């Protein structure tokens, strides 16, 4: 089936203060998505301050130059909109979806906090408490919490930026200070380090004027130099395990380094497709073998990047496979069988039609992500931030469709046990 594409017009410009702006007008529904992405994430937080990038994200919602605490939430929601923010390995995003008549309000709110959040001791202590509850909900009080996104990086990587717990230790969170926050803002939240995007029901000329008016006087500050976080590839297998007292069943996740997603996009894309060939649905290689035939696995998944965002991550990153096993399941056997399937794919290649159907399904997922104005706004913002290529949003389905069977074979051949890092969950009984 022919892979279709979208034709969103994409406009780019840079304000005098260095803020990059991307607009993707589409007037099919009277709504807009607004995103501001800062080029700082978990990998940039200082030692002794694990979880700080995320904690700081919370502080960006606690008021700013013209806004009291709670005002941001009320102004967005009182305009009929929704908001959120999220912290990733390489970036932090802040976003709103609103009826299009509220566009200027959203721009005002984002510009106000770009000029400077209100950093107070009271708000900091309050948000440390909130973040601790977030970590309890998502990690400490549930089975498989943080598996594998927090558990596997320390096995695969050796340096602090790549290996540490991005949610943070309670000790580090509790010792965070207002001065730390002010310094973090000064260093990383420069408008030269940010991208603003708007997608949806907008007029380019009017939106450009509004953006100029609200963001034009944000003081110019250049982006800090971004360190190279690269580490050498593994030369021998790494394998660790940990007990999860809440987990009832065994699980294992494995990761392999992949080419640099930014500098070597053509070399990277086959891995994105390979992950789907291996794991997308009942007709995928590993589901057919491990779940349906051998019954050694209950459920599995495969994806690029520890946070599962293939087009929003920089080097170093990985292809991941994760498996949940039945009671008493044999993790070694599962890994061995996965190796076998990878070897078979590398040796014999794909069957007729196998790649085409996977590419068609991937196109559906990509197009579906961008139907929502927010999905579009976030994607173009990060594509601009990391690649300077927001128009890639329209090309991704086609580029996925151009990956060849030979490239898939070659990619599969690199996922060998010697280059693999894996982490096993030893069930604690589940209570």
């Amino acid at each position, binding site marked *: *089936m*022919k892979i*279709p594409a979208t034709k969103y017009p994409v406009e780019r410009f840079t304000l005098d203060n260095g803020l990059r702006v991307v607009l993707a007008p589409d007037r*099919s*529904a*009277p*709504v807009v998505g607004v995103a501001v992405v800062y080029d700082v994430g978990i990998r940039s937080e200082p030692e002794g301050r694990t979880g700080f990038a995320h904690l700081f994200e919370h502080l960006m919602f606690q008021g700013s*130059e*013209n806004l009291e605490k709670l005002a941001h939430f009320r102004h967005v*929601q009182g305009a*009929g*909109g929704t*908001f959120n923010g999220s912290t990733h390995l390489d970036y932090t995003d802040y976003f709103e979806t609103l*009826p299009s*008549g*509220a566009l*200027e309000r959203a721009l*005002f709110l984002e510009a106000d906090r770009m000029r400077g959040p209100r950093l107070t001791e009271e708000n900091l*202590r*309050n*948000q440390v*408490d*909130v*973040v*601790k*509850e*977030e970590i*309890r*909900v998502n990690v*400490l*009080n*549930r*089975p498989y919490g943080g598996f594998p996104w927090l558990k596997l990086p320390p096995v695969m990587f050796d340096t602090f930026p790549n290996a540490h717990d991005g949610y943070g230790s309670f000790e580090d969170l509790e010792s965070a200070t207002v001065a730390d926050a002010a310094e973090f803002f000064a260093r990383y939240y420069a408008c030269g380090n940010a991208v603003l995007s708007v997608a949806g029901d907008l007029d380019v000329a009017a939106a450009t004027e509004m953006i100029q008016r609200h963001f034009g006087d944000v003081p110019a500050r250049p982006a800090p130099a971004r360190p190279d976080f690269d580490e050498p590839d593994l030369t021998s297998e790494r394998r660790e395990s940990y007990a999860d007292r*809440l*987990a*009832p*069943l065994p699980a294992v996740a494995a990761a392999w380094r992949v080419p640099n997603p930014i500098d070597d996009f053509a070399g990277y894309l086959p891995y994105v497709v390979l992950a789907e060939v291996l794991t*997308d*649905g*009942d*007709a995928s290689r590993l589901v*057919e073998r491990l779940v*349906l035939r051998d*019954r050694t696995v209950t*459920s599995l998944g495969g994806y690029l990047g520890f946070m599962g965002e293939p087009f929003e991550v920089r080097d170093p990153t990985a292809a991941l496979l994760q498996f*949940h096993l*039945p*009671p008493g399941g044999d993790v070694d056997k599962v890994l061995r069988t996965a190796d076998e399937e990878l070897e078979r794919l590398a040796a014999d290649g794909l069957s007729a039609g196998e790649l*085409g159907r996977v590419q*068609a*399904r991937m*196109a*559906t997922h990509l*197009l*579906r992500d*961008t*139907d*929502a*104005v927010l999905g579009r706004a976030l994607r173009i913002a990060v594509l601009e931030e990391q690649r300077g290529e927001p128009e890639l949003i329209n090309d991704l389905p086609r580029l996925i469709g151009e990956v060849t069977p030979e490239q898939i074979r070659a990619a599969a051949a690199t996922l060998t046990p010697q280059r693999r890092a894996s982490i096993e969950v030893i069930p604690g009984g*589940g209570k």
Partner: protein
Amino acid sequence: MSDTKRALPALLPAAPIKLPTQAERRLTNGLTVIAIRRPAVPLVEVRLRMPFARANLARGAMLSQTLFSGTAEMSTVEIAAELQSVGGGLSASVDPDRLMISGNSLAAGLTRILEILGEVLDGAAYPSDEVSTERDRLVDHIQVAKSQPAHLAREALLQRLYGRHPYAVQTPEPEQVRAVRPAQLRALHAERVHPAGATLVLVGDFAPKRALDTAEAVLGSWNGGGKDVTLPPAPGPEAGPVLLVDRPDSVQSSLRMALPAVPRTHPDHAALQLANLVFGGYFSSRWVENIREDKGYTYGPHSVVDHNAAGSVVLLSAEVATDVTGPALLETVYELGRLSTLPPGEEELEQARQYILGTLMLGVSTQAGLASLASTYAGVGLRLDFLSEYTAQLRAATRDDVAAAAAKYLAPSGAVTVILGDAAKIEAPVATLREVELE
């Protein structure tokens, strides 16, 4: 900081919700098909909703797991591969009201995805090997669910709330699943998987009338018949002592409360929705601002008006740190009581009103959002045009209406309360506020 305050920009007036072009047809076999055009991306969304009340719990769950596990002509893998070849995917789920098949594909694959759907509806074979595999997987899945506090808290709340009504137990026990045989699945399918009373919603990049023609050509021969099974009305919440469910060493307590509510078409519904928002239905609500943004007891508290075919209920949930379980319950009861006894402020009511009007518009701005809303509405006999009526009611609701709805539905004296947590640590503080009963 600058000396002069910058002024918050005004909002431009919101356009009234504009409904997309749509068409509807009742096929001779009883299937209602609704086709809605949104061509923004070259995809289609598919939602097939079939009434499924009173289906055996374990067999129903297994049917949804194995519906796509093969027909006389195709294996599990072939079905999945055929769907993928048009960029498609389909999956089934059950709840006490309905069996739902949802999916999507490239727009050019509409005919093919419906053909595969039709083959499965007519000829799902429930092969023994596949059923056996899926039975084990479902048991594993249930075991994992039972290790999750949110699942355990919900189970306890449903039992407490619904007693002997079919809504009381919504997850089968592993041994019930292990007892399910393929013949029982074929029998359940023959009895209940029928077009009568079912609704197929299609949304996407197509001409609606042509989509209806396609659906009729492909699914018009789907076996008619089927039974009309309805549930008795669900009992409303009956307040009692706080039910404490012990989860030793839990680092958080899962606080759940249920309060009475009314269905979407009830005259009080719009006012109740607004009252719920003011209380805890969105971030800028009293409850969230209090126990999260002021006290830091919790990360994501929320309350929602939850509609089911046999009854509606307001559900509150918050995961709170173990050592503030008592204070969190105190603040929750306080906020419910405050809104039930004093009218909301003008401004906070306007804010809630704008929020719900705006988010309704956001909800229908995507193919998936339109499909889910149209399917949900169709399940209770409504169509998307109900949105106009609903938004008019939301606009018209006064402070008095909202205060009255809060007094009637959100009064804390009417709440069913369940707390899952470390009983040794939380029983005493909770008991200072409310009578406690240990599970």
